């Protein structure tokens, strides 16, 4: 039967694409471990996060078919990630502001803290 008879078949991702993605992911994993041996100061975290975001995007786009999917599904994921970032950004801004008011090392029930 023709393609219309298989309404279920969405986009079939070519094997070459899948393997290319895996290859990139493995390389990036190696890179992220490798850069952790060097010190880039305050950029360490952002480099690590940048690589993680790049890897995550590859998984989302190709393994999870978002590239070929209805845009709504991508919007759902983008909104959820944006909300997480909003939550972290605001909470972090606030806690960083009031951190000086907290008593350093305060934890009376923790017996193992250095004196």
């Amino acid at each position: 039967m023709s393609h219309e008879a298989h309404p279920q078949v969405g986009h079939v991702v070519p094997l070459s694409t899948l393997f290319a993605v895996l290859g990139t992911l493995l390389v990036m994993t190696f890179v992220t471990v490798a850069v952790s041996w060097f010190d880039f100061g305050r950029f360490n975290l952002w480099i690590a996060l940048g690589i993680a975001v790049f890897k995550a995007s590859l998984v989302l786009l190709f393994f999870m078919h978002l590239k070929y999917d209805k845009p709504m599904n991508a919007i759902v994921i983008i909104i959820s990630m944006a909300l997480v970032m909003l939550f972290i950004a605001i909470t972090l801004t606030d806690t960083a502001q009031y951190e000086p008011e907290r008593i350093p090392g305060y934890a009376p029930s923790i017996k193992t803290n250095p004196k």
Partner: protein
Amino acid sequence: MLSSFIGTGPGFWLPRQGSTTAAGVDYLFNAVTAISIFFFVLITVVLLYFVWKYRARPGHEAKASAVHNQKLEITWTVIPLMIVVWIFWEGFTGFLNLQMPPENAYEVQVLGQKWKWLFTYPNGVVDDNLHVPPDEPIRLVMTSQDVIHSLYVPDFRIKRDAVPGRYEREWFQAEEPGEYQIFCAEYCGTSHSAMLSKVIVHRSRAEFEKWLADAGNFLDKLPPEKLWEGGQKLYNQRGCKQCHSVDGVAGIGPTFKGIWGHKQALKDGSQATVDENYVRESILNPQAKIVAGFEPVMPTYQGRLKDKEITAIIAYLKTLE
């Protein structure tokens, strides 16, 4: 009556104004109340008028009218927007006033605990009421020993949580000598509603200084046979009372009534006689001997009670036959 209802005078809304910042807060409260009443009356009158005018009755039918009107929508978007921007700005600037104590403020340390406030003055005096001189900015540096409490003085329009593990600040400047109620405003358990103290605003700086000096050495002034009265005061002020009754009813801890010289059954099955050493150890190292039937929840008073003060408490215990 009406004027007090819409908030132009004291009475219907809000308590008396006891601090320098109270009037500013009240001004905004009253302004927002007036705005609210205006819109509420507007909405209600229009609503009731429409309901009466267009009520279903024989011969009356709905008449077509526009189902949207851009200008109208924009009007009733923009006008409320301008009003709330104004309210925000007033609230924000007023809040900055409430937040920032003047440089020269007199500092009192505040400790919240279940279920009392302790105020520590620069000379080490601890009291469960907040004594302050008049017309002088007072800065409170607050923390808590157990759960979150919140120090609230309605007459001063101030409130701030006392959070364990951290120092919070609030300030005020009292205007009139007198007594002002302190509440705990953050729910903290069984006796939350009994966690009451007073702000006592003295008549002058000199009177306050005298009180402070007297409070610093009140035990020294007592003759030995009256030492138990000092112990009773410490019992009331330093947090013993919250858990240990003197009427024979067990609370969170055992009652003090009639225990002096008697044997207590301990949790580990042994016994202990209530004497000087036992009481001293129980105050300084409360977890050492736990009376059967009670939880090991008492905090240590090591460094918080002077030796003489413990002696006074022991003297008080002896009186509780």
